[in-house]
C-alpha cells in the first residue's frame, strides 16, 4: 500500500489544462476584440471625443441639438481630456492595441506632424477630401491657409478650429502715457520708440520666450515675425526653407531688440514669468496670435480689462505682410470605425456650418475657417470688453488676405528642437543670426529622416 496520495490521472490533468487554455483564449479574444465594424447609419450614437481644451468640449456639447435636427443620428458625447501631446500618444497606442480609439479627436497643431510620419494619417484618419467635394461650394469656401497644416498629398485629415492670425496687443493707457503713437507703420520705427520707452520707463514692447524646457514656445516668438516677413519653416512639400535672408533679418531684429530693451525675455508666455511682467508694466505690448487674448491676457491679468487694444502688426520695411499664422487645433475622425460616418457628419453639422462658425467666434474667440462667414454682420457687431469694447472682427477681416499658409513636416519637432537651442544662443550673443540659422539647417539635416 502506498502512503503517497494517488496521482490524478493524466488525461484529466490535460483536459483541465485544455479547458483553462480554452477559457483563457476566449477571454483574451473577447477582451481584445475590436467589436463590430459595421458602420452605423442612424439612431443613437455615442461619440468618443478626445481633446485637450474644455472650450471645444462645451462647443460640441452645445452643437448636439443642431446636429440631431439636421441628420439621422441622435448624438451623445463621451469626452476624454488629455494634454495636447498625450492625445496623439494615446491615440497611437490605442490604434496599435486595435481598440479604444476615439471617434473624434482634436489635434493641437504642433502635435499633428506626428500623424504625418510614414502612413499614419492614411491608416488612422478619415480623409475628408471627398466629403468636402460632396458639399457644393465648400472647397472654395474653406481657407486654404487653414487646411494646409492638416493636409498631406492634397488630402485633408482635419478641420482647423481657427484662423489664428497674429496681431499686436498693447496697453492703450501706457502707450498714451509714454507718448507712443498707435499707428506706427514699421517695425523699425517701433523698435526705435521701444528702445526709448525701455530707457525711460523700463518697459518693453515685444517679447521672446526663453523657456528652455519648451522649444515650441522659444520658436513661436521667432516664427510669428518670420512668417509675417514672408519667410517660412517648410514649403508645401515639407522641405526646410528656413535658411533665408528673411529669417536672418528677423532674427537680427530680435537680437538687436534684446540689446536695446525693446524686446524682453520671459521664461513663459503663459505662466508666472509673463504674469509678473504684465502686472508690473514691464511688458506693455507684444505680437501674438488672436487666441492669446483669452489664454494669455485674460487669464493672467484680468484686472487689466479695458486697458488692452489690438492692432495690426507693423510692417517690416523690407517687405512682407501685416500678419502671420500661429497655432490652431484640427479635428479629425478616426477611420474604419462604426461611428466614422456619424462622427464625420457631426463635424460637418456643428463645426463647419455657418452658424457653428459664428458660434465658434462668439463663444471661444476662434475665427471662422470659411471665407463666407466673415461677411456675417453679427461678427462685425461683436464688441470685446477686455479690449475696451473694441470691435475686433473688422480688423481681423481686413487681415485675412495676408494670412500665410503654414505647411507642416513630419520632421517638425526635430526643427523645433534644434532651432530652439540655436535661437537661444543667438539671443544670448553666442552665435550670430547667420551662424544660428546655418547651424540649425546643419543640425536638422543631420537628424531628419532617420
Amino acid at each position, binding site marked *: 500500500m502506498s502512503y*503517497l496520495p494517488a496521482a490524478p490521472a493524466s488525461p484529466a490533468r490535460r483536459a483541465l489544462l485544455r479547458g483553462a487554455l480554452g477559457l483563457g483564449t476566449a477571454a483574451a479574444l473577447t477582451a481584445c476584440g475590436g467589436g463590430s465594424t459595421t458602420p452605423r447609419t442612424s439612431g443613437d450614437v455615442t461619440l468618443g471625443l478626445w481633446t485637450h481644451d474644455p472650450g471645444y468640449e462645451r462647443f460640441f456639447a452645445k452643437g448636439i441639438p443642431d446636429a440631431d435636427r439636421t441628420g439621422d443620428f441622435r448624438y451623445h458625447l463621451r469626452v476624454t481630456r488629455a494634454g495636447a*501631446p498625450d492625445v496623439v*500618444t494615446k491615440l*497611437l497606442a490605442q*490604434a*496599435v492595441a486595435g481598440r479604444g480609439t476615439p471617434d473624434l479627436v482634436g489635434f493641437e497643431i504642433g502635435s499633428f506632424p*506626428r500623424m504625418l*510620419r*510614414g*502612413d*499614419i494619417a492614411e*491608416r*488612422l484618419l478619415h480623409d475628408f477630401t471627398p466629403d468636402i467635394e460632396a458639399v457644393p461650394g465648400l472647397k472654395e469656401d474653406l481657407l486654404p491657409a487653414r487646411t494646409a497644416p492638416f493636409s498631406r498629398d492634397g488630402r485633408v485629415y482635419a478641420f482647423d478650429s481657427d484662423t489664428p492670425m497674429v496681431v499686436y496687443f498693447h496697453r492703450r493707457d501706457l502707450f498714451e502715457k509714454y507718448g507712443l503713437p498707435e499707428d506706427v507703420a514699421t517695425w523699425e520705427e517701433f523698435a526705435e520708440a521701444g528702445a526709448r520707452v525701455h530707457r525711460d520707463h523700463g518697459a518693453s514692447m515685444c517679447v521672446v520666450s*526663453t*523657456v*528652455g*524646457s*519648451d*522649444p515650441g514656445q522659444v520658436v513661436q516668438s521667432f516664427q510669428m515675425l518670420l512668417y509675417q516677413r514672408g519667410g517660412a519653416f517648410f514649403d508645401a512639400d515639407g522641405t526646410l526653407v528656413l535658411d533665408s535672408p528673411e529669417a536672418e533679418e528677423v532674427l537680427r531684429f530680435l537680437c538687436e531688440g534684446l540689446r536695446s530693451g525693446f524686446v524682453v*525675455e*520671459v*521664461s513663459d508666455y503663459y505662466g*508666472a*514669468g509673463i504674469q*509678473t*511682467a504684465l502686472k508690473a508694466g514691464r511688458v506693455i505690448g507684444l505680437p501674438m496670435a488672436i487666441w492669446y487674448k483669452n489664454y494669455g491676457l485674460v487669464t493672467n491679468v484680468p484686472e487689466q480689462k479695458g486697458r488692452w487694444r489690438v492692432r495690426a502688426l507693423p510692417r517690416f520695411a523690407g517687405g512682407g505682410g501685416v500678419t502671420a499664422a500661429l497655432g490652431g487645433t484640427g479635428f479629425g475622425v478616426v477611420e474604419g470605425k462604426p461611428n466614422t460616418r456619424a462622427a464625420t457628419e457631426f463635424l460637418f453639422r456643428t463645426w463647419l456650418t455657418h452658424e457653428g462658425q459664428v458660434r465658434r467666434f462668439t463663444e471661444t474667440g476662434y475665427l471662422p475657417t470659411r471665407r463666407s462667414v466673415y461677411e456675417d454682420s453679427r461678427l462685425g457687431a461683436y464688441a470685446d470688453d477686455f479690449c475696451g469694447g473694441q470691435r475686433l472682427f473688422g480688423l481681423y477681416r481686413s487681415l485675412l488676405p495676408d494670412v500665410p499658409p503654414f505647411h507642416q513636416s*513630419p*520632421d517638425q*519637432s*526635430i526643427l523645433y*528642437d534644434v532651432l*530652439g*537651442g*540655436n535661437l*537661444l*544662443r543667438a539671443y*544670448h550673443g553666442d552665435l550670430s543670426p547667420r551662424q544660428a540659422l546655418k547651424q540649425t539647417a546643419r*543640425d536638422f539635416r*543631420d*537628424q531628419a529622416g*532617420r
Partner: protein
Amino acid sequence: MTTTVVGPPGAARARSTPKGEERRPRRTWAPYLFVSPFYLLYVLFMLIPVGVSLWLSLTEWVGLGTPRWVGLRNYRLLATDISFHRALGNTAVFVLVALCLVVPLALLIAQALNTRGLRVRDLWRTAYFVPIVVSPILVALVFGLVFDRQFGLANAVLRALFGSGGVDWLGDPDLARVSIALVMLWRWTGYLTVFFLAGLQNVPRELYEAAALDGAGRLRTFTTVTLPALKPVTAFVVVTSFIGAAQIFEEPYLLTGGGPAESTLSVTMFIYRAAFQRQQFGYAAAAAVVLFVLVFGLSRLFNRLLGIGRAAS
C-alpha cells in the same frame, strides 16, 4: 549541529522507506509550480520585451503598420548622431555627479546622523528622506520657480546677498546642467543616506573600541573601520546609483525638457523623444539597446571592481 542533505526532491523521503521496498524517486511538479510565477513574469515582462526591442532596433517603424527591416542601419546612424553623442555626454556628467557627489555626501550625512547623542535624530532622518517621497512633478514645479531667471528664489537670494542675481539657471546650457545636478543632489542624497545609515548601525562597536584603544583619531577610525565595514553597502549604493543616474529622465524632462540646446538631454530622454515625439520607434529601440549594453557592461565592471558577490576572505 545540523547537517543539510542536498539531493533531488523526494530523495530523502525515498531513503526513509523500509529496506526491500525501495521506490523510484517520484517526480513532483510542486517546486516548479511554486517558482513558476517568477519565471512566467520574467519571460513575459523581461525576456520578451528585450527580445522585441532587439528586433525592433533592426527595423524602421512609425508606431503603426508593419515595421520595415533595415538591419544595422539604426546603429550606424546612432554612431554619427550628434544628438545621441550629446545625450551620452550629458548622461556621463549626471553619472559622475551621482557617484562623485551624491554618494559621498550621503555617506557623510549618514555618518553625522549616526553620531551618538544627536538630538531629534528621527526628525533629521525624515527631513533628508522626504525629497524622495515628493512627486517629481512637484519637484519640477518648485525648482522651476526657484531657478526662474527673473523672479526665482535663487536669484532673489543672490540679489539679496551680492546685489546682482540675473543668473540664467535654466536658460544657460552649462548652468542648466548644474541646476539638474543640484536637483539630483537634493532628491537622492537622503535616499542613499538611509542605506548607509543601516550599514553603519551594523558595524560592531568592538571595532570602534579597538580603534580607540589603538589611539586612532576620527578620520583614522572612519578610514580604517567605517569604510571597510561599509564596503558591501557602498558597493550596492554605487551600482544602484550608477544604474539610476544612467537612466535619468524625470529631472531633465520636467525641468528643462532636455534643453537648452540639448545641454541636459539624457539618453533616456533621447529614446523617449525619438519614440514619442518623432515616431522613430526602431531608432529609439536601437538607442535603448546601446544604453542597455553600456549599463549592463559597466555594472558588471563595477561589480567586479567592488567585489560584489565575492566571498569574504
